[in-house]
């Protein structure tokens, strides 16, 4: 493998929620065709990073390059047209539109109708369950189906880069496995790059190629997933591996002062 072709590059990004600094200078890169994951506790700034990339929040400092083009402070709809799709946390499907209409909304920026029909079929191929509910209003779908629909909708844009925010949220163990195997398939079959935010560190590390660990708005660790999985800290804090009898100690430790 030669030097990886970087399609997304964040340099020194700072973002704010009102007066509060949510990200404090983050730099990261997503190579072409790879899955990169962001790990971190609640409030570490993972979701904010994704929102900053997709243009929902404007960063105050730093640059974001997508396919060599600066996209910081660009409007969200323009960024989508460049080939960058965002599946937000909590799914955000259009509740009153049917499954089909939701998918068509995903293809909204596109003009090539034949290819769109083809892609709809491809999405139904990934998520056969959606085909069964093609005319149902999205609001009536179960949580897992809504998550599938949200991912499917993003795929309809044929993105070069897919941002996934907590795809496993509220899903049953079997569905989590299913969703992640599909994510892997999408990545392999279409060569789509994916930036993944996930609380379920185990699945995320198994799925992704490279990982960044965020804490209070900073990158504290980054490495290949394989190496991360073997790191002591990651094992203890993100994978929940601990020696038997450590419970009392953990209880005491939960009052971390830096939290």
């Amino acid at each position, binding site marked *: 493998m030669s030097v990886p072709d970087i399609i997304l590059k964040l340099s020194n990004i700072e973002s704010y*929620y*009102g007066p*509060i600094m949510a990200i404090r200078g983050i730099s990261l890169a997503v190579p072409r065709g790879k899955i990169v994951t962001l*790990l*971190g*506790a*609640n*409030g570490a700034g993972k*979701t904010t990073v994704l929102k900053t990339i997709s243009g929902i929040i404007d960063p105050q400092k730093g640059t974001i390059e997508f396919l060599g083009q600066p996209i910081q402070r660009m409007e969200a709809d323009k960024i989508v047209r460049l080939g960058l799709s965002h599946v937000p*946390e*909590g799914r955000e499907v259009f509740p009153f539109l049917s499954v089909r209409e939701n998918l068509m909304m995903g293809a909204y920026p596109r003009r090539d109708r034949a290819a769109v029909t083809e892609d709809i079929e491809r999405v139904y191929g990934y998520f056969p369950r959606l085909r069964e509910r093609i005319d149902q209003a999205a609001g009536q779908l*179960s*949580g*897992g*189906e809504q998550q599938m629909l949200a991912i499917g909708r993003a795929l309809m844009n044929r993105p070069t880069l897919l941002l996934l925010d*907590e795809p496993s*949220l*509220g*899903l*049953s*163990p*079997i*569905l*989590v*496995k*299913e969703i992640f195997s599909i994510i892997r398939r999408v990545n392999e079959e279409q060569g789509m790059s994916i930036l993944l935010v996930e*609380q379920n*560190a185990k699945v995320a590390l198994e799925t992704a190629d490279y990982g960044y660990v965020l804490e209070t708005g900073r990158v504290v660790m980054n490495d290949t997933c394989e190496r991360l999985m073997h790191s002591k800290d990651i094992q203890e*804090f*993100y*994978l*929940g591996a601990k020696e038997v009898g450590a419970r009392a100690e*953990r*209880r005491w430790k*939960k*009052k971390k002062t830096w*939290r």
Partner: protein
Amino acid sequence: MSYFRAENLSLHFGGLKAVDAVSFAVEKGEILSIIGPNGAGKSSIFNLISRIYNPTSGRLHFEDQDITAAPAFEIAKLGIARTFQNIELFENATVLSNLLVGRHRHSTSQLWQELLFLPSVRATEKVHRRRVEQVIEFLDLAAYRDKLISGLPYGVRKVIELARALCSEPKLILLDEPSSGLNVEETDDMSFWIRDMKTELGVTVLMVEHDMTLVNRVSDRVIALNYGRVLAAGTPSEVQQHPDVVAAYLGA
């Protein structure tokens, strides 16, 4: 007589049977978990108990009282509190005022007394405040006390919802996916809190959860649902080894 009972509970939407003749009982001081695939009807059962939906048929009993026809706000007054799968917090209010709403079932003041903010109102407000502070301490939320909900991360909101339910000093608490959006470490904390609720606060817990680690650690009993019907019931390990549960829910 069980502490809480659901008898032949059904909820039909047109032809769809979201909940289909489900019966179960919760004993006082017990932690009962409901597991099952998405769309199996777990949240619907919660919505039936808290009277957001009316059951198509069946009855609900709590402390020897038939609560099938009680209005939603009465359920809370009886001491049943809950959290929501998709989080229903008061977005444009601070954490503190969200938690104080949790105290609502304990408020006794009249409108005119509140307009004048009589000393009696002031005194009860301080009592409410002290209780809320105990919950904040219990769930380690001091850092967020004066923050607006709308800026907080998902996992924190999840905990605040739990806190709001606890503020009402419930006898029975319904937790809808308490660990969703929490990482391993935070889920760990959650498991301690749930156990403490049972042992220290004497709350009976009915919980819907996907994280089997958490289910195993805290539950006394588990029931598994699929397509609105009870698939299996028993101790956590019994249910998890049940072949139907493995096939429908856990995966090989």
